[in-house]
């Protein structure tokens, strides 16, 4: 039942109509592209690279005993090798690399952000409870008042690299040398030891004194070695001094609390906030990371400081994004139209000049513009003889940031509009003029719609970019001007700069809260983009 158009011997190439069973199972292999040398070399190199990366990634995983991660790595690598060494699964060969990169660079960061939003992760709440306890205890080790400072040498009775460690300490007052380990201090006979000036033991009978190199190789054992004494314990301070110190604060598992042995005060673990809290509400600074459920999200919705100025900021945010995108588009397109005119001369020179702002680093340009808007010393006021406090009043500041965006962004729009214009056949506009349309009518009815079909996706992405254009605000006004009675929300603040201040401007960074806010912003941008793309699709259906 092959179609009349198909040539001789093409029966297997017209699937769908004929009985499927009639095809020999291996017929597909016969149509594979021949193996070329460059193809083979490329395949070998890429697979070799994959294996190399896998091996490189495996070592830290083994070191950290992350077996699940290792299994995933092995499975992915084996899967990739299978996929590209077999001749089957052609579509998968094309899809898998993109999918892997999508997972690595899009899905995982988004999931990580989303999961962070449900925690209190931030300064003071970075690690686990155990880490917090260790930090509390070690930072409370103090030298016993009036206790002796010993000169220290680290020694061992066995092999310098593995033998059990001993502290050889010299009392500076009496000059007596003692050996200390977890069993306590034992005084050594003065005849058995050689002491350098300053009190450090250089040799002792029966002991090997470790040099700095050998000792520092066993750093962790040295810092962990605590020699019990009557008053507290002897600890090392570096490799040449020892002191009698005591951890004033200790964790007690019975009450799940930290007790200060000097004052008797206790701080009980509060799993609701991830910190040790005293009866009077005082918290120990070192907390831990906990799940807070929806608390970050409810805070965004219920906190007056956030929900109060939210609407105003959102409206300005839309105005900024639309103003930046629309303004740059209009200006870019106008210039592109002018340069597109066949009567225009020297277009290449103009094009080079016009693209200059695009070629300069926007980071530096934003700072330069900020200085140009300075009320007393800025170029703009001086050049035009104005006395405008640009960043000091809401509307001038808003105008200024959009103006800067216009300058930075129009070359891009100019470039893409030029490209799109060149793709529109001149016959179309010529036809309209033959039909008696004015240039404006022909632009309105033919050129603009065709331009928009090509540029709409770019406009939408430019909108989404400007909606979250942190640098544009942070490097120029920093959100200023601020109302005198509200230092948290300024007239030019975008949602992203405003929430950045909320999440990172206070007492330490709050990554969990910041993640929750970014999910809200993501939702807003996603809705706007979806609506935009839907409209574009309708437009394409009309004009294509």
């Amino acid at each position, binding site marked *: 039942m092959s179609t009349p158009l198909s040539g001789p011997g093409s029966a297997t190439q017209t699937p769908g109509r004929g009985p499927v069973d009639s095809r020999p199972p291996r017929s597909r292999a016969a149509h594979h592209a021949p193996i070329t040398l460059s193809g*083979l070399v490329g395949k*070998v190199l890429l*697979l*070799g*690279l*994959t*294996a*190399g*990366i896998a*091996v490189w990634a495996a*070592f830290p995983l083994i070191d950290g005993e992350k077996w699940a991660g290792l299994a995933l790595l092995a499975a992915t690598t084996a899967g990739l090798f299978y996929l590209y060494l*077999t001749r089957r699964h052609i579509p998968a060969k094309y899809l898998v690399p993109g999918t892997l990169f999508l997972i690595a660079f899009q899905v995982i960061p988004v999931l990580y952000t989303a999961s962070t939003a449900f925690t209190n992760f931030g*300064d*003071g709440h*970075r*690690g686990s409870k155990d880490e*917090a306890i*260790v930090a509390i205890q070690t*930072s409370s080790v103090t*030298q016993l008042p009036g206790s002796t400072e010993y000169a220290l040498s680290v020694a061992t009775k066995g092999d310098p690299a593995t033998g059990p460690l001993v502290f050889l300490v010299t009392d500076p007052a009496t000059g007596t040398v003692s050996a200390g380990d977890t069993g306590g201090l034992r005084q050594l006979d003065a005849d058995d030891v050689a002491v350098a000036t300053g009190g450090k033991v250089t040799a002792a009978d029966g002991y090997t004194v470790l040099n*700095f*190199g050998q*000792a*520092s*190789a066993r*750093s*962790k054992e*040295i*810092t962990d070695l605590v020699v019990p004494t009557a008053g507290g314990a002897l*600890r*090392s*301070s*570096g*490799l*040449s*001094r020892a*002191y009698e110190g005591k951890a004033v604060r200790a964790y007690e598992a019975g009450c799940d609390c930290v007790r200060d042995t000097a004052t008797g005060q206790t701080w009980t673990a509060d799993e609701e906030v991830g910190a040790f809290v005293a009866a009077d509400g005082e*918290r120990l*600074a*070192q*907390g831990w990371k906990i799940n807070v459920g929806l608390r970050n999200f409810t805070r965004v919705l219920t906190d007056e*400081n956030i929900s109060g100025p939210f609407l105003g900021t959102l409206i300005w945010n839309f105005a900024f994004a639309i103003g930046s995108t629309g303004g740059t588009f209009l200006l870019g397109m106008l210039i592109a139209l002018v340069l597109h005119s066949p009567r225009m001369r020297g277009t290449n020179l103009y094009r080079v000049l016009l693209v200059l702002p695009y070629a300069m680093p926007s980071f530096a340009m934003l700072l330069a513009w900020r*200085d140009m808007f*300075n009320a*007393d010393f800025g170029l703009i006021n001086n050049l035009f003889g104005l006395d405008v406090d640009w960043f*000091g009043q809401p509307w001038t500041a808003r105008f200024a940031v959009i103006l800067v965006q216009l300058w930075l962004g129009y070359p891009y729009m100019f470039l893409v509009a030029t490209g799109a214009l060149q793709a529109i056949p001149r016959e179309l506009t010529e036809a309209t003029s033959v039909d008696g349309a004015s240039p404006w009518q022909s632009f309105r009815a033919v050129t603009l719609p065709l331009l928009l079909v090509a540029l709409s996706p770019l406009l939408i992405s430019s909108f989404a970019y400007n909606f979250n254009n942190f640098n544009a605000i942070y490097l120029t006004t*920093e959100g*200023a001007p*601020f*109302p*005198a*009675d509200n*230092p*948290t929300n300024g007239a030019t603040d975008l949602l992203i700069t405003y929430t950045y*201040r909320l999440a990172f*401007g*206070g*007492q*330490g*960074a709050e990554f969990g809260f910041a993640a929750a806010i970014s999910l809200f912003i993501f939702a807003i941008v996603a809705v706007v983009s979806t609506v935009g793309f839907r409209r574009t699709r309708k437009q394409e259906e009309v004009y294509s």
Partner: protein
Amino acid sequence: MRIRTAGVVALFALALAASGCGGDSDKPAAKESPKAAGGKLVIWADDKRTAALKPFAEKFGTENGVTVEVQAVSKDLQTNFVTASQQGSGPDVVVGAHDWIGNLVQNGAIEPVQLAAAQKSAFNETAIKAVTFNGQLFGVPYAQENLALIRNTELAPEAPKTIEDLVASGKKLKAEKKATETLCLQVGQNGDAYHIYPLYTSAGGYLFGAAANGDYDPKDLGVGKPASIEAFKKIGALGEKGEGVLKRSIADTNSIATFTGKKCAYLVSGPWAVADVKKANIKYDISAIPGFAGGKEAQPFVGVQAFYVAAKGKNKALAQEFVANYTTTPELAVALYNAEPRPPALTAALDQVKGSDPDLAKFQEAGRNGQVLPAIPAMAAIWDPFGKAEAAVIGGADPTSTITAAGKTISGQIK
């Protein structure tokens, strides 16, 4: 044929993988070899200090048979250090400002350093106080800095005794067209709490009260209290709607340049400004920042640069040895001074360089009555709202409502 191709591919890939493998097994081996001879110490510092530290780090390394690596982290050193140390990839020693201590401690990133009494007494008292947090010494200071009044002696030969004197002489210079600004004190669009603080204290304001152990008490917030409102009334009187001495258009970007351009006779800045002033060939002198007539002393913040031992470093014993016993030597302090001229915290080192650099003693004298910049985490909540309130008041806003609102914002952010 097909099987053979697959075999060839697999073989090549395995060979490549093996070479990748080989390259990797080299690395641990390379790590192993210095380990056998000695440990490795990793130090993180900013660009300038990295260069100054390198020769000393190398000397320490060769003297003791260990490898010392000084790595420059040019941006966000504190944040990078906290993040890296949480992941276990941080350094053993980090160099930074003392007001990081609160945040580093709450993240469990640094450990106390045990100094002998004799070692401690070799330092300037203020510097030791700055690195003491919760009664524990958390770092070894090497330099300290504070603001002072730098004046162009050709325009203003006499050091002003009060702000009023300064304003009067500055205005006279303006009237004589010798200068265009009265005072270069950076404010900026969003304020600058650090630079306005001396005037704030002179007018009677404070940030945090003192706790029983001498630390700052975050529960006793001075911003928003009547005294702070009175202080800002005085500051506002110097602002744009008043005397026009303090201006938002003078910011961190142009304050020093305006002074070196001889557009103002007085500059409030720190030791970092001196290099530019010298380059501009300006005859200058340094004195304490004057206070308001009849007011309190103007107290600048005193900041300290220090070495810290990372709590999660791999080689803590060696790090402690380096920080407690090596950075306390005057030679290193002098070298760091040569890299960037800030007064050394070690008294012996300061005496050594004082002779060749008279500015140091003057800066130190200007900071004699200074207040240690609070290192408590709550201080992070001060900077932004306080600065903005300052900018608003200087721009002419009502001090009472502005400062009350700033106090409310700050106390809302302090946990």
